[in-house]
Every structure is written in structure tokens, then in C-alpha cells.
């Protein structure tokens, strides 16, 4: 599934059990939904609002992940 980055941030401080840094984003989907997802690479400091991404589900972590496609 593809979507567009609405907003993004890279965390440098997090709760125990989460390795920093890591990047998260709100992703707008074509049907109007907006979901929080984590970069599949862990960190993607280059991602910006408006970027196109693909969304996947990380079964092990049970979270949504995104990959940047293009700006």
C-alpha cells in the first residue's frame, strides 16, 4: 500500500526497550486514513512531509513500517 507522509520526526530519546535513533511518521492513505508508522530502516532522517512511501506490516514487532519511494 502506498501513502504520503503527513509529518515525521526522528527520536533521539525513547523509553527503555527502544533503540535510538529511529524515525516515525504519520502516513496519509488514499482512503483518508492516517496511520503512525516506523521507518523500515530504523532511521530515515531525510524523509519529509509530502514524500511518497510504501507501507508494510512488521509481523515480529507488530507495527506498521514505511519505505520512502520518492519525493
Amino acid at each position, binding site marked *: 500500500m502506498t501513502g504520503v507522509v503527513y*509529518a515525521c*520526526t526522528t*527520536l*533521539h*530519546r525513547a523509553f527503555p526497550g527502544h533503540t535510538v535513533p529511529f524515525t*516515525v511518521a504519520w502516513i*496519509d492513505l488514499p482512503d483518508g*486514513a492516517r496511520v503512525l508508522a*516506523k521507518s523500515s530502516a530504523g532511521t530515515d532522517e531525510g524523509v519529509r*512531509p509530502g514524500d511518497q512511501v510504501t507501507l508494510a506490516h512488521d509481523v515480529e514487532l507488530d507495527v506498521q513500517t514505511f519505505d520512502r519511494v520518492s519525493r
Partner: protein
Amino acid sequence: MSVHVVGVGMTRFTKSPESSVEELGVAAIAEALADAGLAARDIDALFCGNVFGGLAVGQRVARAAGISEIPIVNLENACASSGGALREACAWVGSGGSDVALVVGVEMLTNRGGGLVASDAHGPSERLGITLPALYALRASRYMADYGATAEQIASVTVKNRRNGALNDRAHFREPVELAEVLESASIATPLTLLQCCPNVDGAAAVIVVSDAALARRGRARAIRIAGWGMVSGNALDRVGAEPTATLRAAHAAYERSGIGPADVDVCELHEPFTIAEIEHIESLGFCEHGGGAEYTASGRSAIDGDGVAVNSSGGLIARGHPLAASGAAQVYELVTQLRGEAGARQRPNARVGLAHIMGGNIPEIDSNACVVHVFTR
């Protein structure tokens, strides 16, 4: 029927891990009673805001303060807890249920270990490891993309609020900071740096509100009227790209009820746990147009000596510190002090109208747990 503030008190907000909610609460209450010229036996209802103190904090504080045989209500709405407690007190006074009500906000945070305050442990975002500063950082990234605001403009909130805090003996941080120092402090969640985040501190603040009849008995000296209020809880944001509107909705209600508009406001205490929040809130409160908040702040308009609304003259959450449930009552302390003309070196000249805005939120998919706005006039 009007409701009037006749007494305020607060401890210094700072790190005091050896203290207790009882000790802090009693200190704030004692100052508020002395300020009002009232005794503990004059209080006929107590409303206590607290988040992390456990059960019956209001009853424990009352016992320590020598207050008994009155109804006590405990209220938890995250950071909006004592703003909400004030709203409940006003509802009781306004409906004849109380003549002299005491509001207390109290929080011990530093005995919990410091660092990041827990967010929603039960929600779908928990597994992502999202933090409260990250939620605000997400908003900052969108704001910068929408309006071309710069990291420097956003960080200027800290420079202003630390300058104000240096003039406030109740604030945790008493030293001003330079913009470069703010930007070069440790990155927490891009673009937000450490000095753009409010510090975890302990503290308490108390407010005494009275009815018209009680005011007539006591006399009007130094009384401040509560002219209007708005209180909302958040809408779900997890569908169809909804935008946060809690501040807009609460402010609209407060302006409608008071007949006072944003152009009338002289001094405002608002909820800025992170710099970007102040920029967005001054827009939602109507002090400037949407997208104009960064320039409004960076150009000095919201400084005490600026030509706009003086925002967070106390130093705000970033300089005064943020003992969650105590911050709402501390905002009232600052506004009452300003409207009485007793703010000393941080006085906004001729301040006549004040607005307090506090909100609490820890759930990414909800537009705040609660948002409370009160308007005050002298």
C-alpha cells in the same frame, strides 16, 4: 451570578524529590488563604487536580491542611487536571453549591525517576515507542512544511519564556538562554531539542474562588472576576485526517460566554510543554492568523514588552517547569498577579484581561484528553 478569584498561592516549582503532595499542597493553600484574608474554616468545598499521586490526594492534602467536614472532589485529566478542577469549583459556586471553594493542583514528578513522562501504555502506538515530545515534533515538522517556519523561530519560544522565568521567583529555571544554546542542546525528537522541552519538577498551586455573596461579605479588594470558560475533551483523530481542534473549540466557548475577544486579551498563560505548542496555540486562541505564530513569537510581539499579547509572562511550562496537574492553577496565580498589577519586574503594564489555556493529552489518536480555557478580568 459571577465567580471571583480572591486568593492565590503556589510553591516554587522545582525539583524537590524529598517533598510530598501533602507538604506542597499545604504550602500553596496557606499562601492562598493568607492572600484572600480567609481561614481554613471558611472553605466549604475542595477540588484537587493530581495525576500520579495515587488515591485521595485531595483528602490527604486537606487533612494535612486542617480542612475537614467539606465535600472533596479529585480530578485527573492529565496536564489539564487543575484547570478542570477550577472549572468544577466554578460550577459549584455558580450553582449555589459552594460559597468559598478551594482549588489545588499538586504533583510530585521527580520521585518517579525523571526523564520521559509515560504516554498511552494501552494504545496502538505504544509498540512504536512514540513519546510525548515526538508527538509535538510531528506537529512541528508539519507546521514547518505548511508555513515555511524555521527551527530558529520555533526555538525562540524558549528564549522568550526563559527570559520571563528569570523574573519569576517561583520558576524552576531562573537564567535566560541564547538562541544558539537552545538549538545546540541535545536533540530529543527532531526538530525539538532538550531546551525546547519543559522540565519535570514538583510543585503545587492553589486558587480560592467565591460567590457574589461571599465577595460582598469579604469585600472586593484585589478580587479578579472569572468572565468566561470553555472546556472540551478531544475528538478521535484516527480517522479521515482530522486536525486537532480542542484549543479552537474551548477558546470559542470561552470567548462566547465572556463576550471578550482575542483582541481584548492583555496577558495569556498557555500550555507549551514543547515550543511548537505555544506557536500553534497563539494562532488557535486568535492572537494571530494561522501560520503567523512563528513570526509573532520570533519578532518579540508576545514578549512582556511586546505590542501583542504577553504570552507566558511567568516563564510558562518551559521555564517555570511543569508539575503536570499543578500547572493549570499556577497559570491562574500568574494571571491574577498580573491583573492586580503586582507582577513586579515582569508586569505587563495596565493588564486588564487575562486568558488561561491548559490541555492534557497522552494518546496519539485523540485530540487531547481535555482542554480548559478561562478568561479573567480585573
